[in-house]
């Protein structure tokens, strides 16, 4: 007995160690190891679908604030879930501020849970896929969630693939990004800005000048440092620096391009002339003090009806959106909200059934998103609701599932979903869509470059510093940090990806 214990302890240690390390190495063994046990159960439950054994599921997702009526909603949700798939689900809403810390720890510790919300901006999807935190879903999807799968276009599914496998179900919504500027309507009208004639930034210069001269206290061009980016798509590049239409898929370092230089120079010229707010490089968010006190700002996601949404954030001033690039879709905008199944899930097939149910059953979806009718919202017509902010339940509808199944919020046009869906399907799909750069081979260099970018880009791209002096300095430092090596690695992976794609 004693000897056994002595042997057992190191073995246990080893198991723990392996479990902790499974993130570092090849994720596949860990992932398939987790699924090997339940993999046998789908076939068993398939034969006796009618007599599904009762299971308990746990579902982590992010919310802005945990609502007071959470328990009430959970009980209502369970009535539906119990009757349809004989399961109960424990809803675990976590505030976005704690979400990443909390879920990273829980996931690293191998905590048992079933469904988990993930994204590229919180509890990072790619990182966790590489760590082996999620189960591969292709088989489960085909078997248990055919309708959820059908409702989402193929390219969105492709965005979730890692080494060919799907690891999460997208919560389908707007997947396009549309770059442009917002102009406060009042000023556009007053100074006769021809909105339709503006095709690029330069066209706005006369307008800035008029604002500067005639509207004291108003910032002609309001920039937010860390958010101000050189948008490749507006200059004919895609996000990996491939010229659109280039069949050889040669990736260019955007910082070295002439367009980048011209952009920085233009911004600097405007900064010197006082068109841009002086704290542009550091200010983090359209701060309260800027609300409505600017004429033009940059917009990264112009989607149908967004002007109405944004109005309240601009001190109630109406805005006009001017697009400066094509509507496009890239991998990033397709993975902004996803639901994955944890590697530690004991019932992955039931978890998948729940995903299908949330995506299919409008009643369940609307219950999760809006709460109870009469208490948490009022129906204005068949598809539009007015949310009662003091009702005790609010949740972001896009963390649960396909938003096209849900109600519209008061003020949204009745055809919002159709327009959005059409836009999604007609967007320019970037040539490198689906390609995902894996920086493990050049991790140190990539980290250094990211640090340099965070330091220099806000300064250069808001025009705060003179590019004649700082741009060569920046490029020089990038080179020293190993940008060539990263670029070579990127090209290598890109070539491999293109070759693989051609075979298909």
């Amino acid at each position: 007995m004693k000897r056994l214990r002595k042997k057992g302890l190191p073995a246990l240690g080893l198991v723990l160690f392996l479990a902790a390390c499974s993130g570092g190495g090849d994720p596949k063994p860990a992932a398939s190891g987790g699924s090997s046990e339940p993999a046998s159960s789908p076939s068993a439950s398939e034969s006796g679908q009618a007599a599904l054994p009762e299971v308990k599921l746990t579902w982590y997702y992010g919310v802005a604030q945990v609502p007071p009526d959470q328990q009430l909603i959970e009980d209502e949700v369970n009535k539906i879930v119990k009757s349809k798939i004989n399961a109960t689900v424990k809803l675990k809403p976590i505030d976005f501020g704690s979400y990443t810390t909390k879920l990273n720890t829980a996931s690293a510790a191998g905590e048992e849970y079933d469904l988990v919300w993930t994204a590229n901006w919180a509890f990072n999807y790619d990182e966790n896929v590489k760590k082996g935190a999620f189960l591969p879903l292709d088989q489960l999807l085909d078997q248990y969630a055919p309708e959820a799968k059908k409702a989402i276009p193929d390219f969105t599914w492709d965005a979730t693939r890692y080494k060919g496998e799907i690891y999460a179900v997208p919560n389908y919504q707007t997947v396009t990004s549309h770059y442009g500027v917002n102009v406060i309507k009042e000023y556009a009208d007053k100074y006769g800005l021809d909105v339709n004639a503006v095709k690029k930034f330069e066209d706005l210069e006369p307008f800035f000048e008029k604002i500067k001269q005639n509207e004291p206290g108003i910032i002609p061009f309001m920039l937010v440092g860390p958010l101000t980016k050189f948008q490749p798509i507006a200059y004919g590049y895609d996000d990996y620096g491939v010229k659109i239409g280039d069949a050889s898929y040669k990736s260019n370092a955007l910082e070295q391009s002439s367009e980048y230089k011209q952009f920085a120079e233009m911004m600097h010229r405007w900064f010197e002339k006082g068109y841009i707010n002086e704290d542009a490089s550091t200010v983090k968010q359209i701060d309260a003090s800027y609300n409505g006190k600017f004429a033009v700002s940059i917009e990264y996601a112009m989607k149908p009806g967004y002007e109405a949404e944004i109005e309240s954030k601009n001190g109630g001033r109406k805005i006009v959106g001017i697009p400066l690039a094509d509507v496009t879709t890239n991998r990033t905008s397709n993975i902004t909200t996803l639901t994955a199944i944890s590697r530690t899930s004991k019932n992955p097939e039931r978890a998948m059934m729940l995903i299908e149910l949330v995506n299919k059953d409008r009643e369940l979806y609307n219950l999760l998103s809006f709460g109870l009718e009469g208490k948490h919202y009022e129906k204005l017509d068949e598809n539009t609701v007015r949310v009662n902010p003091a009702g005790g339940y609010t949740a972001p509808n896009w963390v649960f599932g396909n938003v096209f199944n849900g109600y519209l919020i008061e003020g949204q046009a009745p055809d919002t979903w159709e327009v959005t869906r059409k836009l999604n399907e007609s967007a320019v799909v970037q040539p490198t869509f689906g390609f995902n750069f894996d920086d493990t081979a050049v991790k140190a260099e990539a980290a250094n470059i990211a640090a340099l970018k965070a330091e220099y880009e806000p300064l250069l791209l808001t025009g705060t510093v003179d590019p004649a002096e700082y741009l060569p300095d920046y490029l020089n430092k990038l080179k020293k940090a190993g940008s060539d090596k990263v670029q070579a690695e990127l090209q290598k992976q890109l070539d491999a990806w293109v070759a693989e794609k051609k075979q298909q």
Partner: protein
Amino acid sequence: MNAATTSLSNRKGNIVIHLFFVLLSVAIIAPFLLIVSVSLTDEKALAEHGYSFIPARFSVLAYEFILQSPGVLLRAYGNTIFITIAGTLLSLLLTSMIAYVISRRDYKWRVQLTVYIFFTMLFSGGLVPFYILMTQYLHLKDSLWAIILPGMLSPFYVLIMKGFMGKIPYELIESTKVDGASEWRIFFMMILPLSTPALTTLGLFIAFNYWNEWFNALLFIDNDKLVPLQLLLVRIMNTLDFLRNNSQYIQSLGLDMSQLPGESMRMALVILVAGPMMFIFPFFQKYFVQGMTVGSLKG
């Protein structure tokens, strides 16, 4: 003549000192007044004019909104008070017990035990093993013990306590023993009363740690009924910061920011959270100061 100049330079010195402290007080009080003012300002006025010491448009809506359902706040207060009192008492008991043992000259393993305690000060298991231990072995998720237990023993405090107790003459313990006291009696009737200065000092530090604790709560508390005060604040602040820093995504997702507490509501919450403590603190302050000075004279 001579006396007059000294009194004049004295007065000058006094003025400088007074001025310094007046400025210091202003620097401390002004931000707080700003918070009070912002919490009483109309949200729309804040958006238009920014922060100011005198509310552009007066409004108590933020307080009304929070106090509409004061349950959350009161419960958070209750949790924090329970955690602080229970945690401090248990922690003091445990700390003094261990410190006493390793301070006894006649204890055979005192050096090894001291080294062992010291060792934990330098090396820790890390976050993930800690989380595994707490959730999968001790099953402390969603329990206030998850906040109390990890803070109960700090090696640093044990060593301070040991330093203090080491100064108590061993002969005292010996003579008590000769008089027929048991080990328990010696500890509770002799050592603890003699260590009051050290106990009050450490008790103050420990109580502050518990009062300000939020990270363990963030990790282990999901149940809204068990959320302590500081976590309530941290959640709101973190979430707002997080959403602001990721606004490019939020905008494309169309999250309605009006769901979030506005500026004035955040400030009102700060006041409601910090307020009672600030009124209580001056009454306790003299004891704190006493405890600290006595503790520092131990050498």
